[in-house]
């Protein structure tokens, strides 16, 4: 009885399954400046701060503190020695060599004993030198009477740092110090000064590694969150561009930024992104790749439902359509949600070149998309099942070339496909100088030798090479992976059932992909389901026709530019010969 019940539960549909949970609902078109949008920032700035506090206080509380006094254990004490002991305990001094406690005296009248706390390597030494100089050498003011005002005096009159905060909780101090700030504790003050001295080693802004284009900006994100947000804000200089921060990962305490245009992005979408991010409990988030796996809708489908890019211009163009970007500190790849398959086949370059060339590129890429996963499977289906399909001369040429090959076609194809994948993988891992050449040399030599040794037929080399080229033409790294795996499925289907097998694969892939959602947006929109606004899907219309933002994102304001965006064609005023 129980078993049958369990079985029934197993095979029956569970209500309110999570993947049905969020659907981006239609909004009223053209309702810009909704009051809802204005409320957004005040609501949303609270949670990250609260969250950070909660987490760090938990971490701090774990440390045994022998000399606890009444009141909040987290509060900063008035005694400099007590504070020093607490800090030492929290960081595990003296074993922990990263933390530096610098004791010094402020040269006021009377002198004040202080110590500074910072982590070696995360701070900018030049700024720190300036700070100590200012406090120790140039401070010659009389001390005010009230003790509580001490920190404010130091902050307002003595410290030249550009961001100085006053905190009275150890948890805040730890968070800041962990981020590279310098904390200064003063004798007799229950508050600590936090001075912005972040300055760790990092990469500069370089050219994109995996998304090169010819026309268009050549900047890529790097590992520094602030640099990344600045790169985006450099393109969208709009006060409505909102960056929210929250901390994730119990151990890494990674800062994750959510960026969106306050008056454009659908509030439901922003709320959903924050809901998903807030709910994640893990210890280690080092890269946006890990985060994306936590928040994606369909982890079991091969297709990626989150767009990953390292190009600021790409993110900016998506933000002005009303999407949301998620930037993870320490990751040069930014996530953009929601996304569609068609977005993943775009590079941004099509918009920078004229529309005819852009459309041409898109069609080329559409072809590459099909070839990259279908070609070997279709080839096998033809040579094994559908001999009637190819022209006689071509068939006889294929047959003739295969005469000396001792393997069945399947083995032949697998051999070459796997070699090609190996070359590809090795080309990435091999150290710099050889890496680039090994791909070409490896492929050429291997192919040539394989043909000469009669292990594979020459036609197959062409096929595998074309398939490989096609998969390199897919701009999205994850999507290209998916297609590479699909390719092997199609090989299996083509080998067993010919074109019927291929048809099975295509249908299954279509249904499964059509069922996908990326943050409430169908993955195949705007084609399946059909929505309006198809000026930039496969073909790209001239820019002055891009009047609407994509409908499936349901932005607060759908209009991107007026119907006549080129004012000069209407008013035929100056400069003519009339």
């Amino acid at each position, binding site marked *: 009885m129980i078993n049958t019940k369990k079985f*029934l539960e197993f*095979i*029956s*549909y569970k*209500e309110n399954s999570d993947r*049905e949970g969020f659907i981006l609902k239609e909004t009223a078109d053209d309702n810009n400046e909704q009051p809802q949008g204005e409320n957004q920032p005040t609501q949303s700035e609270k949670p990250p701060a609260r969250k950070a506090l909660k987490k760090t206080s938990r971490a701090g509380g774990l440390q045994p503190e022998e000399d606890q006094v009444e009141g909040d254990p987290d509060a900063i004490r008035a005694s400099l020695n007590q504070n020093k002991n607490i800090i030492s305990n929290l960081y595990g001094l003296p074993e922990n060599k990263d933390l530096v406690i610098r004791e010094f005296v402020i040269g006021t009248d009377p002198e004040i004993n202080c110590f500074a706390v910072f982590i070696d390597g995360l701070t900018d030494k030049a700024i720190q030198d300036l700070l100590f100089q200012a406090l120790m050498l140039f401070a010659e003011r009389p001390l005010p009477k009230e003790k509580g005002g001490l920190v404010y005096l130091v902050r307002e009159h003595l410290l030249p740092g550009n961001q100085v905060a006053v905190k009275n909780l150890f948890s805040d101090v730890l968070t800041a110090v962990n981020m590279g700030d310098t904390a200064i504790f003063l004798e007799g003050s229950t508050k600590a000064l936090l001075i912005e001295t972040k300055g760790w080693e990092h990469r500069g802004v370089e050219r994109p590694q995996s998304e090169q284009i010819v026309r268009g900006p050549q900047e890529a994100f790097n590992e520094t969150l602030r640099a990344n947000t600045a790169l985006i804000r450099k393109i969208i200089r709009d006060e409505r561009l909102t960056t929210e921060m929250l901390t994730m990962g119990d151990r890494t305490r990674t800062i994750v930024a959510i960026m969106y245009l306050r008056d454009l992005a659908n509030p439901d979408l922003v709320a959903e992104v924050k809901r998903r991010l807030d709910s994640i409990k893990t210890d280690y988030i080092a890269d946006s790749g890990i985060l994306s796996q936590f928040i994606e809708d369909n982890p079991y489908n091969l297709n990626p439902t989150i767009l990953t890019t390292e190009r600021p211009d790409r993110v900016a163009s998506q933000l002005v359509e009303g999407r949301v970007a998620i930037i993870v500190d320490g990751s040069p790849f930014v996530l953009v949600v929601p996304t569609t398959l068609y977005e993943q086949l775009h590079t941004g370059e099509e918009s920078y070149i004229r529309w005819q060339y852009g459309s041409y590129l898109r069609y080329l890429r559409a072809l590459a998309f099909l070839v990259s996963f279908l070609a070997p499977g279709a080839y096998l289906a*033809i040579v094994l*099942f*559908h001999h*009637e*399909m*190819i*022209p006689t001369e071509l068939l006889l040429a294929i047959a003739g070339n295969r005469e000396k090959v001792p393997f069945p076609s399947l083995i032949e194809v697998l051999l070459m496909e796997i070699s090609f994948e190996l070359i590809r993988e090795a080309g990435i891992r091999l150290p710099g100088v050889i890496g680039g050449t090994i791909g070409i040399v490896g492929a050429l030599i291997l192919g040539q030798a394989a043909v000469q040794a009669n292990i594979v037929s020459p036609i197959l080399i062409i096929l595998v090479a074309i398939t490989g080229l096609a998969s390199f033409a897919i701009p999205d790294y994850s999507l290209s992976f998916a297609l590479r795996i699909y390719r092997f499925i199609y090989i299996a289907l083509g080998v067993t*059932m*010919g*074109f*019927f097998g*291929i*048809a*099975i694969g*295509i*249908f*299954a892939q*279509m*249904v*499964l992909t*059509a*069922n996908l959602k990326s943050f409430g947006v*169908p993955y*195949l929109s705007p*084609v*399946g*389901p*059909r*929505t309006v606004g198809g000026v930039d899907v496969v073909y790209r219309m001239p820019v002055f026709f891009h009047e609407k933002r994509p409908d499936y994102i349901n932005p607060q304001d759908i209009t991107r530019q007026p119907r006549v965006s080129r004012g000069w064609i209407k008013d035929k005023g100056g400069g003519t010969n009339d």
Partner: protein
Amino acid sequence: MIKAGSFGPAEAIILLTISNIARIFLPYPRQLVEIGASAAWMTPLGGLVVALAGFYVMYLVLRKNPEQTVVEITEQAFGPVLGTLLNLFTVGFFLAVGAIFAREFAEAIIIAALPRLPISIISLAYLGLGVLGAYLGIEALARTARLAYPYIFGGILLLLLALIPQWGTGDLFPVFGKGPLSVFGLGTFSTAGVTEIIFAAVIIQSMGGIDSFRLVGYRSMLLAFSSLIAVLLVINLAFNWSTMAENTLPFYRMARNIYLGRFLQRVEAVFVIIWSIVAFIKIAVTLYGAAVALTRTLKLPDYRPLLWPLIVIMFMLSLLPPDLPTVVKLDADLLRPYALIPNYLLPLMILAALRLRRRDPREEG
């Protein structure tokens, strides 16, 4: 509750159209050529009119209760016992369509492309993908149809255009083929047997409710019947009807006859992909129809547990007929007349019953 999903009229039109044109790829056009001879292309005209009228009648029925589907309305009209029986009849119709189409498509694949693939494997593939499609729901199916339709219609169009060198008006005559009675009488009878009216009435809540029902119905029927007419017209233009009537699969024969020079020929295997995808959609759609109709009849919370039993029944039914000619005969002699009952007779009966019911209390009062 039943995972309804929802999709717009664009997808609904395409879904119903693809479901309807599945018959083009089967031995079905052969029957029309037999009926119409040189006027085969006229045979669907009568069917089109009837199908449009059928959609209108169904609209009248569904308007009685815009929140519900035809299944509930049937029950309201005829009471729980008779209503449930009628609804089970509808479910049976979907099963029969699914089974016969699965078998016919499987046979077609064997004849056309893969003569040595066991039929059980092909049927399993069809039915397995049918379950997959139906399990993911009508929304995913509609989107798939929307994705596939440029290729399906593009493929058909390409095929028809590729035969232009073989077109000739000579075989369009005599104009009325086997006589107006045969062309318009028998022709209407054989082409009016569509599945889509009742199917659209069952999934009405998913495809945007009563408001777009007529639009979707009319457009999809126009599109589907014009495809059928176009195919038959090209058959008449390019082939001698008497030999075309010999062919098991007229569409395949057309694809085989493409000859556009030394390189562009022998393309029929490509059409196997198009066929199969249409077949997958068709079978998934009928399975979904059967499951949802049964779920609503029995007032179950979800249709998915029903998919397995229904697919097994469909699979068994599809393998029951001993040979292809029997299946073709069943299609023509049993399925087409059977189709008339849920699609045309049932809505008329509901209208009559509802009118009687309404009149009764009035007379009493």
